[in-house]
């Protein structure tokens, strides 16, 4: 006679949501540290224009120079580590709680999505404020630097969100390669990537297509290029899922 399960499994969504809560259990990773980095970058982005203004540089010049500030991207490097650790450390941790690989991956993806959308919304809003206050009254530009000045909240929100999704899902997919195939997987993956990049660059160069590439990118515009990157991001997300389905939480 076979025993019957004493406990029923929770419904699918609550199992996935449990993984989300597990990721969020320490608020540092997705909330405290990214915003500390942003706050630090903001302070630097405001102090420098203040110093320049004190030395008689005009507000227009300050604003023009600050367009190239990468300050708003500073938390993105950290996100790369977050993505890797979300897989490398939380996969064995979650399986220790009897979570299936499927629920773990879906929950982790949901955390990425929520985090990218929430942060994107706040960054785009800060950009609006920056524009409205003429660079915080200093001509400073941080949230509207680079190409994050598409003229509408929704467009800037889209850019910020896509960048984060890209970093999170590509970082996570690389981590799943490690979880599944360990060092050899990493070796093959990075060598393969280098080969693909070199072959791609060579193909464009030898077919004299750089102008064409440039024109295509220009015609797509910033929004078009970012919209297209959603395709490789989605591919990375799917790849991560299928790679992790057969991974084991071993040391």
């Amino acid at each position, binding site marked *: 006679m076979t025993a019957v*399960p004493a406990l029923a499994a929770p419904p699918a969504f609550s199992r996935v949501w449990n993984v989300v809560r*597990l990721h969020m259990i*320490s608020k540092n990773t997705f909330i405290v540290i990214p915003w500390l980095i942003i706050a630090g970058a903001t302070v630097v982005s405001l102090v420098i224009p203040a110093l320049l203004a004190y030395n008689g540089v005009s507000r227009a010049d300050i604003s023009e120079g600050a367009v190239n500030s990468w300050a708003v991207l500073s938390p993105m490097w950290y996100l790369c580590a977050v993505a890797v*650790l979300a897989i490398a450390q939380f996969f064995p941790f979650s399986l220790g709680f009897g979570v299936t690989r499927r629920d773990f991956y879906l929950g982790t993806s949901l955390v990425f999505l929520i985090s990218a959308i929430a942060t994107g919304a706040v960054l785009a809003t800060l950009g609006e404020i920056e524009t409205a206050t003429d660079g915080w009254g200093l001509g400073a530009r941080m949230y509207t630097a680079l190409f994050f000045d598409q003229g509408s909240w929704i467009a800037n929100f889209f850019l910020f969100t896509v960048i984060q999704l890209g970093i999170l899902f590509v970082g996570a997919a690389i981590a799943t390669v490690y979880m599944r195939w360990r060092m050899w997987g990493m070796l093959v993956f990075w060598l393969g990537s280098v080969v693909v990049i070199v072959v791609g660059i060579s193909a464009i160069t030898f077919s004299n297509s750089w102008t064409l590439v440039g024109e295509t990118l220009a015609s797509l515009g910033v929004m078009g290029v970012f919209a297209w990157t959603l395709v490789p991001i989605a591919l990375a997300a799917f790849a991560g899922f299928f790679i992790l389905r057969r991974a084991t939480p071993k040391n």
Partner: protein
Amino acid sequence: MSTIIEARGLTKRFGSFTAVDDVSFTVEENRIYGLLGRNGAGKTTIMQLLTGQDFATDGSVSVYGQSPVENSRVLSNVSFIKESQKYPDGIRAKHVFAAAPNFYGNWNPELAEELIAEFRIPLNRDIKKLSRGQVSAVGVVVGLASRAPITFFDEPYLGLDAVARQLFYDRLLEDYALFPRTVILSTHLIDEVSDLLEHVILVDEGRILIDTPAEELRGSASTVVGKRVDVAAFVAGREIIHTDGIGGLASVTITGQLSPAERAAATAAGLELAPVSLQQLIVRLSSHESMEGTEL
């Protein structure tokens, strides 16, 4: 009795190394099993296969009649506490205990609180900064307080001092009496748990050597000590699992129950009969294969 776990022809190979070699056994509901064996015998791998954490190369595992792999219906009923459990950076014991109720339907917060106090677990320190024993205690508390219908403990005592280990055994037995469940415990400290175990599965080099109720195992061997010739005469025709001796004295461990008449005969022949503890028996049996061929 109903079967809760069944392994048939279970095999796991890592490259050319066979960690688990064509193993078949069943686990009955609501009993305490000891999964015993030397380092590298395949205990952890078997547990990982039973909990769907690893994939079998060959054979099958069924838990509640289903494969445990990616099966939340099964895994919701399982708590697997392993010595090698890794915790993410920045996670504290309080985080683990806060998360656990989401995953274990039978989680008992009062029991968890009592155990945390008894094991003196620092709740607010990063788990990576805890001592080995404190990390083990976190696992032990999760394993006990989860009250999962199937609970696996894979060498859960690493670094725990004698007091904490005794506490673990006492609380396990106490809570098991209140809430019967299936417990599978792998350990090296066989003497410490021998009273706890109801069934013993002994593995060596990926194969099962013993799969027997502990009660049967306890009286199943004796050591005969005395003059070499007398001992040899007494043990003739019996299965010998260990031989030892100095000069004219011999100490021979034999399997099989001894009748009162046989015991009397041994005493009359000036021989001493000593019981063999579970640990000794397992040490003898695990090293038996390399002993074969040794003559008295």
